[in-house]
């Protein structure tokens, strides 16, 4: 049993190594689709890393994404790229600490809308600052970073994310979070420092979102607060993650890939009635797949997986 993690990590590394060759096999459009998938894979998986076990639905995804993008817009042409990324990461973590500390008392829908409000506040403050201090809204990012480079960076971040997610899932922290998700009161009674655990995970999840924003920024040449802090990104992340399933590390992936392809296919075939058809497809999915794609897969596997889960729970309980 001891070599299972080695096998899992090894397999993961193989998959990511194979994915690194995608740019040599597809054209510009394929690249662009791969970037879209990689982008939302990181966002949705990072989101589920925190929201899956704790059941807190956060709409602050784009706050971190936007902070990353803005850091690049401000510093991209001044500092070397790795330093820019480092600054972005620090900014994202600091913001996450602040958000985390101020939201801990909130529960349920209050947390959801708080995170949304906070993101909008950040966007407003950034706009106001740009108007007052730099007297320009909208920054031009002239960095010659091509699609391949963006893809490889995203892939690297995704690999790191899956590795961290896997390790956390097997650690004491992961277990603590699952207890919190089950019942926070119980968690406190068994001596888990719930605040610390939640905060730690929130910051980690935010770090990945920030890096993604920073990597994606050079793609658009022009960044303004409406683009960087577009709430649509937060919503899409939540929807993709929920649809895929947030109880497993690879769950969100099952939402991201089909949905990205679906959005694209619908847009290509029904550019004029895209929203209408998307809405109908969406509702059908909700009615037909009550537990998300991952849940549906699990149900298909039926008894066997239930057994596995039972034994996994037993193992957890013994730890």
């Amino acid at each position, binding site marked *: 049993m001891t070599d299972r993690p080695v096998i899992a990590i090894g397999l993961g590394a193989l998959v990511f190594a194979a994915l690194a060759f995608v740019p040599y096999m597809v*054209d*510009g*459009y*394929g*690249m*662009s*689709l791969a970037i*879209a998938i990689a*982008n939302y894979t990181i966002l949705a998986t990072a989101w589920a890393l925190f929201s899956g076990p704790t059941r807190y639905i956060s709409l602050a995804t784009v706050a971190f994404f936007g902070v990353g993008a803005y850091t690049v817009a401000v510093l991209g042409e001044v500092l070397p790229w790795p330093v820019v990324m480092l600054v972005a990461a620090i900014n994202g973590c600091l913001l996450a600490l602040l958000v985390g500390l101020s939201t801990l008392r909130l529960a349920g829908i209050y947390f959801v809308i708080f995170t949304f409000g906070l993101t909008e506040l950040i966007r*407003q403050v950034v*706009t*106001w600052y*740009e*108007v007052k201090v730099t*007297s*320009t*809204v*909208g920054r*031009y990012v*002239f960095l010659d970073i091509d699609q391949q480079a963006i893809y490889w960076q995203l892939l690297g971040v995704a690999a790191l994310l899956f590795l961290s997610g896997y390790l956390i899932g097997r650690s004491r922290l992961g277990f603590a979070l699952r207890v919190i998700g089950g019942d926070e009161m119980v968690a406190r009674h068994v001596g888990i420092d719930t605040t610390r655990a939640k905060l730690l995970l929130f910051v980690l999840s935010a770090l990945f979102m920030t890096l993604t924003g920073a990597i*994606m920024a050079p*793609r*658009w*040449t*022009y960044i*303004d607060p*409406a*683009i960087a802090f*577009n709430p*649509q990104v937060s919503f899409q992340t939540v929807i993709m993650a929920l649809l895929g399933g947030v109880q497993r590390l690879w769950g969100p992936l099952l939402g991201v890939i089909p949905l990205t392809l679906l959005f*694209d296919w619908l*847009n*290509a075939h029904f*550019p*004029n009635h*895209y*929203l209408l058809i998307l809405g109908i497809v969406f509702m059908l999915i909700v009615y037909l797949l009550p537990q998300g794609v991952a849940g549906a897969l699990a149900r298909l596997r039926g008894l066997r997986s239930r057994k596995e889960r039972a034994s996994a729970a037993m193992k957890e309980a013994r730890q």
Partner: protein
Amino acid sequence: MRQMLRKHLGSMICAASLAAFSLSAAYAQDAVRIGYAVSKTGANAGGATTTTIPNYELWVKEINDAGGLKVGDRQMTIEVVEYDDRSSSEEAVRSVERLATQDKVDFILTPWGTANNLAVGPIFDKYGYPQIAGTSVTDMAPKLAARWPNSYWLLGTGGSYAEGLVDLLVKLREEGRIGDSVAMASIADGFGIELAKAGRTALQGHDFKLVYDKTYPLGTQDLAPIVNEVKALNPDVFIAFSYPPDTLGLTDQARVLNFNPKLFYTGVATAFPLYKDKFGAAAEGVVSLGGIDPNDEKVRAYIARHKEVVGKEPDRWASFMTYAGLQALQQAIEKAGTLDKEKVNEVLRTGTFDTVLGQISFDNKSRQVPNIFTVGQWQDGEFVGLEPADHPGAGKLVFPKPAWPAQ
């Protein structure tokens, strides 16, 4: 037997020639593939459905009704591939990549707005497509043209609009018709801030007194506080570099509060038919960006065709640049006599084109159209171009602005 053979032979030749004919017919009917990704939904849809989409549809219909584009000795109809960029930079990038590499279209028309045109700029450049932007106002236009040599920025820079307006104000002050006090409000978005910045510099350079100079965020619904405060300051001139919802909101509030400065200027959407439809006689005398020469035959014919085909009139600003850009593209393809992008680019860079904006050429470093109207005014139900005053067909300012009619 021989006769039969001859008969057969005859019909065979006949069939072969028929086949050859239909083959050449198919060859002749070969279509030009033109693609575009515009915001049919999302925050930009209001602008795109007013200005961009109707002109694309009009242009394609006109060409196809006339039998197609004349490319060399072939007559080619246009086949459209369209996507919705959902007002997102990322979707715009992906859709244009798709047009270039999957659909392999011959030419790509530009998206709506400054941000999306900047986002797709590198892709147009990478694949060598001409990028003729009719809805981007950016001070970076000269720099962008240098960076992406096949890009054209027909709507010009924010600075040119603000300076056109200030030129007008300077003239009015020299004639002793206005004093020094100017109030300015602007939307806190790329467009508003760029114009406000250029306006501020120009106004201060000419020793105007800015009694009010504030911005408001996107999505502001309550404009009463701004109009109230400005009214109390009683300036001779009120300038708002605004977006459609606030342009209409500010005008509404100014009417309610009976704030009627000698010169009343609002931003985007003032030149829209919607503005005239909503305000009717109250639009009289309102000043904004853009404008046309209503006596120009070509302009009148274009408005009539637009109304006939699309069912509504074009806006009196960016619609004209958008359509002129399409005309230039059409003429460049026909002049080049080929769909080869580099050859068409060559013609675009050096040629002169007969468009709804008059004879235009991009034969300059900044790839803009010189002499477009930067300031216009509603006069008798038409939005007349005023500045630059030496532009052929420029109208005379109606001054002071007439009182708001009672409602």
